[in-house]
């Protein structure tokens, strides 16, 4: 009982740290805006409205869905110390796989929806899984093989949508509109907020549970902490690597499928990668510091920053680039939260020491 209280007392300041970092980041951002001649209050107001006002939240939720999924795609392998930088390729392959199935499989929605989602997951997983043997058999670091595989995968989807899958007569490299049966059902009164969010949240819950309550989650952490220890304990590092990468690729592919199966219901060249979901997801995952349960929070933060800065440009004419600067400042300030975290940890240790 008192142990729990003590643990809470120690955890509370630890939770305040990222919060404080956000506050500092916002202050720095305010200075940046003021220097640029924008009233910070108006700027932030526009940013928040740009993301969260009744009229914008629909889009924001769609972005959030994608960023959350991509943060998970980075966070899962990061748990065992592997960095997945190939989110773009996995996202695009997932999207194109889902589009192909939707376009060529005549089936009712009840069948087509899950099949498309699974196809997307498989597409992403297939690409990510290549990096596992490259790492465990050939010794090519995951961080580099995922990065190197991403561009060719995106190029492949670009080729497909430009030639074999191109919509006839369109000036844009895009597939035809997917059949109605492949449209993810949206929430009443919205056009972007759809079942995709539910799917991603369920996947997240699953990931959190696997991480904290299953042997596999434990083994992933062990492998992340010390490969030699894992091998010694009989854990199959190659299998864990493959597993986490497949899971990561599947989540990214799922995100691709969800995007394609939402408005405007097609695979458009560039539409999946250009918004930068992958890097927003990476930033969100890094800021969550390896705790999957924190991902919704950090993903929401980056959604507000990205979606909101578009609104800021529209409403108060803050250039888009300032939005990027603001995001960068948030990332940098949050990166330095380790300073504060270290300080809190030292205080906590001293507190314990005082009792002993």
């Amino acid at each position, binding site marked *: 009982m008192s142990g729990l209280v003590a643990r809470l007392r120690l955890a509370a300041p630890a939770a305040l740290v990222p919060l404080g970092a956000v506050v500092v980041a916002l202050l720095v951002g305010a200075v940046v805006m003021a220097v640029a001649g924008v009233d910070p209050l108006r700027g932030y107001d526009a940013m928040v409205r740009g993301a969260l006002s009744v*009229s*914008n939240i629909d*889009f924001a939720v769609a*972005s959030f869905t994608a960023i959350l999924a991509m943060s998970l795609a980075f966070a899962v392998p990061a748990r065992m110390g592997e960095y997945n930088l190939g989110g773009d390729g996995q996202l695009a392959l997932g999207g194109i796989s889902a589009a192909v199935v939707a376009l060529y499989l005549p089936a009712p929605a009840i069948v087509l929806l899950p099949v498309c989602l699974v196809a997307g997951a498989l597409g992403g997983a297939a690409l990510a899984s290549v990096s596992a043997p490259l790492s465990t058999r050939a010794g090519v670091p995951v961080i580099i093989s995922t990065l190197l595989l991403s561009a060719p995968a995106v190029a492949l989807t670009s080729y497909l949508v*430009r030639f074999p899958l*191109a919509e*006839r*007569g*369109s*000036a*844009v*490299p895009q597939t035809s*509109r997917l059949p109605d049966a492949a449209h993810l059902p949206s929430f009443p009164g919205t056009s972007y907020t759809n079942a995709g969010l539910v799917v991603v949240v369920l996947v997240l819950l699953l990931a959190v549970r696997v991480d904290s309550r299953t042997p596999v989650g434990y083994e992933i952490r062990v492998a992340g902490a010390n490969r030699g220890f894992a091998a010694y304990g009989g854990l199959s590092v190659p299998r864990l690597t493959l597993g986490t990468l497949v899971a990561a690729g599947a989540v990214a592919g799922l995100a691709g499928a969800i*995007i394609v199966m939402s*408005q*405007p219901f*097609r695979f*458009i*060249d*560039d*539409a999946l990668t*250009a*918004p930068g979901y992958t890097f927003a997801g990476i930033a969100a995952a890094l800021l969550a510091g390896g705790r999957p349960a924190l991902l919704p929070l950090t993903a929401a933060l980056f959604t507000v920053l990205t*979606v909101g800065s*578009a*609104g800021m*440009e*529209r409403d108060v004419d803050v250039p*888009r680039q300032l939005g990027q600067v603001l995001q960068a400042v948030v990332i940098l300030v949050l990166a330095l939260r380790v300073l504060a975290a270290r300080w809190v940890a030292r205080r906590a240790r001293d507190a314990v020491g005082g009792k002993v």
Partner: protein
Amino acid sequence: DSGSSGGGEGGEESAGSIIVITPNPVGGNNFLELAVQGAEDVAEEKGLELDVFESTDPTSIQQNVEAAVREKPDIVVGLSFSLQDAFATVPLDNPDQQFLLVDGCPDPQPENVTCAAFREHEAAYLAGVEAGLLSETKQIGVVAALDTPFIRRWVDPFAAGAASVDATVTSTPLFVGGDNPFGDPARGKAQAQVLADQGADQVLLAASGSNVGAFEVATAGGFQAYGVDVNECASAPGQVVDNVLKNVDVALAGAVTEILDGNTGGFQVYGLAEDGVGLTALEDDVDSSGCLIADRPDVIEQVREVQEQIIDGTVTVDDPAAG
């Protein structure tokens, strides 16, 4: 917000407003800059308020269209076919709002959407005719940003036009591609250099921001260049032959005026016949344009002939984007 109460035509106090939505950032993109210029002109002329929403990627387009609709301007203007999807659906949900799509048209066309499209391939064909006539090495080329159907509207007719006057001319298209196809001048220059090294002496530059580098190759004497959308003859003085013009500013201003006058729902196509596209060579002020073609009235004469043939239908130019 100017608090306009009466819809439709602007009253005397609040002349009204238009919102222009672009598919990409405007800076460095000749076509978009020209279109926005046209919007500014007509806004000034009519005393309209003008707002420009720049999209950064396909996803933000829909968001900008809906945000624009919420502002209830007199006209929501979309630039380029990338907005076609949004303009197929949003107008249906907002029947009282007028829309103008430039460079594309949704099918079916909602009643409250006016369309304006260009037959830029016709002008590109004429530029190809010039290139075919002027090429000494019988090798010509194109540096373009990306291999998409839309951009092919410059690439393919340019080659076809050249071949129409000299079947031995070969055309090599190169696409910048990579991470930033519309803004990677170094890559654009490298590709232009490849064409120069291979002996191409007439090269169409259709790579937007990546053109800057390609023009440097022209300046250094690598080849003679052709610009796109606006007069770019000053980009490599003495080395630019001509430009494939697309008078989007005129078309946009015209369409806005029409809509404000109540003539909504049309689909105006601007080709050579309508004077919506053309070449600098065919303009009245060609002599002061700084373009090389000004020194070759003979070639201009031949191009005029082909122009007539296209207009009267004896020559048809395939549209690569029409499937």
